[in-house]
């Protein structure tokens, strides 16, 4: 398929997942923020925005937090901005994505402006975004052939998901945010899954392990990295006796095995470092994929004049 289209699909996957992850994080933190003092709100906002890695606003108020994470259309760090960017990419790849997928993205984009931008409105907004992104994912899965185009979509989604779950976990690590494990698990939609898996015999302290390492829960970091790895293998199945030619696969695989084969003690002791590494790996893998599949580095351009 065309490199340009592949790139668009990869980014549709990333942006939709980013909107989903950001909504989850915002939703769960709003609950606490709402009742906090102005002083506390400022600390929490500052902390949260740093973890999300977004450009810092001029002042740290509840309003600026909502704007930066939910409503600003000009930045792809916000939910609205991500969904807008996903729609724009779909517009450029419209003949490749199924019409249902395009329509879902398009109507979502039109629906962005129909929410009150206060705290209560934002709860509803986050909930609405989760529904829409679920619908978008579902339509992509059920109306597109699982061919190369779909693999790029899936690849972008998995990488972004690993990154987002890592950030979710990072917000739990921050003292200031004071998020309980129960809320953390709810944020990832993993609460029931966790309880059923652990049968309530072990303590909540294993919740972090679950979100990081569970091989079956779809939003765990490990599982997301596995998914990304599978996509990369399917995209370039060439077999080599020794080593990897594919940088992205090497980066993702390395991160995955580091997580998989670290002891619980190692993980517990330096969780923030692991989380940071995950985010870094996702960024580097994304770069490697760009170089391999989408690069226009050697593109010819005509600069001469006609004599």
């Amino acid at each position, binding site marked *: 398929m*065309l*490199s340009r289209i592949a790139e668009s699909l990869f980014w549709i996957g990333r942006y939709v997942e980013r909107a989903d992850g950001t909504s989850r994080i915002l939703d769960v933190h709003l609950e606490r923020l709402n009742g906090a003092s102005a002083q506390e709100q400022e600390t929490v906002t500052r902390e949260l925005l740093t973890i999300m890695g977004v450009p810092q606003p001029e002042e740290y108020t509840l309003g600026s937090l909502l704007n930066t994470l939910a409503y600003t259309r000009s930045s792809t760090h916000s939910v609205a901005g991500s969904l807008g960017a996903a729609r*724009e990419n779909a*517009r450029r790849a*419209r003949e490749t994505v199924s*019409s249902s997928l395009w329509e879902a993205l398009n109507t979502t984009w039109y629906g962005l402006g129909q929410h009150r931008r206060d705290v209560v409105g934002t709860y509803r907004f986050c909930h609405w975004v989760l529904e829409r992104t679920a619908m978008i994912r579902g339509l992509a899965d059920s109306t597109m052939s699982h061919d190369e185009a779909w693999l790029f979509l899936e690849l972008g989604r998995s990488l972004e998901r690993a990154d987002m779950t890592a950030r979710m976990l990072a917000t739990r690590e921050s003292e200031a945010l004071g998020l309980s494990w129960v809320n953390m698990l709810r944020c990832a939609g993993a609460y029931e899954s966790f309880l059923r898996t652990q049968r309530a015999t072990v303590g909540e302290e294993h919740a972090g392990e679950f979100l990081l390492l569970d091989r079956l829960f779809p939003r765990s970091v490990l599982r997301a990295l596995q998914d990304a790895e599978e996509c990369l293998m399917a995209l370039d199945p060439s077999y080599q006796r020794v080593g990897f030619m594919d940088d992205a696969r090497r980066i993702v695989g390395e991160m995955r095995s580091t997580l998989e084969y670290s002891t619980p003690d190692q993980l517990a002791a330096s969780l923030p470092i692991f989380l940071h590494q995950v985010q870094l790996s996702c960024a580097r893998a994304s770069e490697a994929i760009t170089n391999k599949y989408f690069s226009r580095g050697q593109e010819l351009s*005509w600069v001469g004049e*006609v004599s």
Partner: protein
Amino acid sequence: MLVHMSDLFAGYAEALQGSRAWDEMFAPGFTLRTDYRPVERVLEELSLDDVTARADSMSRTFLDRGVTFDYAGEERAWPLDIVPRVIPADDWDVLERGVSQRVRVLEAFLDDVYSTMSVVRDGVVPRALITTSAHFHRAVHGFRPAGGVRVHVSGIDVVRDAEGIFRVLEDNVRVPSGVSYVLENRRAMSKGLPEAIGSVNVRPVEEYPRRLLAALRKSAPSDIEDPVVVVLTPGVYNSAYFEHTLLAGMMGVELVEGRDLVTRANKVYMRTTDGERRVDVIYKRIDDDFLDPLHFRSDSVLGVPGIVNAARAGNVTIANAVGNGVADDKLVYTYMPDLTRYYLGEDPIVPNVDTFRLEEPEAREEVMDRLDELVVKPVDGSGGKGLVIGPDASPAELEELRRKVLTEPRGWIAQPVLQLSTVPTLAGGRFAPRHVDLRPFAINDGDDVWVLPGGLTRVALKEGSLIVNSSQGGGSKDTWVMSRPGAEARPAALTEPEPQVHVVGDDWPEELSQSPLDEIGLLPEQQQQQGGASC
């Protein structure tokens, strides 16, 4: 037949009395034309609330599906009026033959212009007519494109004058657009007015993408077994981008931008995730000027350097061919009747609009005296660009126009103001007559010219306005060509005398109805192409 109209038609009869134009739905005396009966029957049942709700729902669907056009930098839903424009089977027969004839003449003319110019040698047109055309490109002189076709897709604009005669207003053989709206309008109308469309035999339009793909594949360079077809778009900011995505999607081929293509050793490749892949047929939706910085505008970033040389070498088919603009030059248009006789030995089936050539001194003199009652158009414009309607223009505008025409008479033609026919259109809470034109689309695969039944009907939404362009507040209508097998729906006793369309040569064979087998015959090709293009 006297009609008992709902309130929606209140005032329509009066409005018609004040109009000199031909009304498509009502004959003089407010008599309903037979082919409109099913439509009228459905509309009669509806209240204003019903009609408004349906119109809203259609426009909402367009917005959701992204069927939009750019209006002042904003995406607006494509404007579709709820009343269809109906074309009786007999009228369509004539139009279809006329359009097809027109395409064959234009094809022959272009082939001649870019080879021996016998049309000049034989004194049919002056040499200067061709060589002074802004779209005569010497870069493509002296070779016949791979596949031998130049006018793969054309849009022949026609209007119906006050006497009910269809006339060709202009030919579009460069990059005619609008066919996607024909497909989308039909889709929307089958949901917006299902009772009406279900009760009549309207000829379908959805086979267009299949026909187009088949024609494009057929015109591929001859040594290619399974040609790779792509659609070349200027990109997402082009106002017709929606159409490009729709056609590429429905044909199951790649939609490429200039930067996705690269030429090497006179062959064209596209950059894919698997490396470079050879391209055989390019359905070009870019203006010639921007196509190849080697030959045309060197500052173009939309084009592909070297693509014209690749076409000259016969390694790629560009559809429509480069240089076609010389044929839809409006001054060449004035010679179309002569060209028809010269190339085909036939008289034109659908006549031209009477036109003054302003480079001829006598004509120019007359036009200068009557500027305020004529329409003056630039010869190389399209989409109503630069056109001046005399009666609507201010004295200052007319003075400006006079100056322009006198500076460059070759650049202009003048025509009488035509009373375009009218169709009832929803405006201000009821139906009112509004002027329409029609752009039928034709596909030429080298052996046959196929005309899409109907075409794009554009309607001027402002009262009395003759400007139908969507960029200037125009809307559209679904165009229903009645099919002949449904003739039993029209008892002979009720058939009114149909308007006499200017017909020459009554010995044309009866148009055969579409055989379902023809369509099936096209299918396997389509599937192969999809398989081949999904890389």
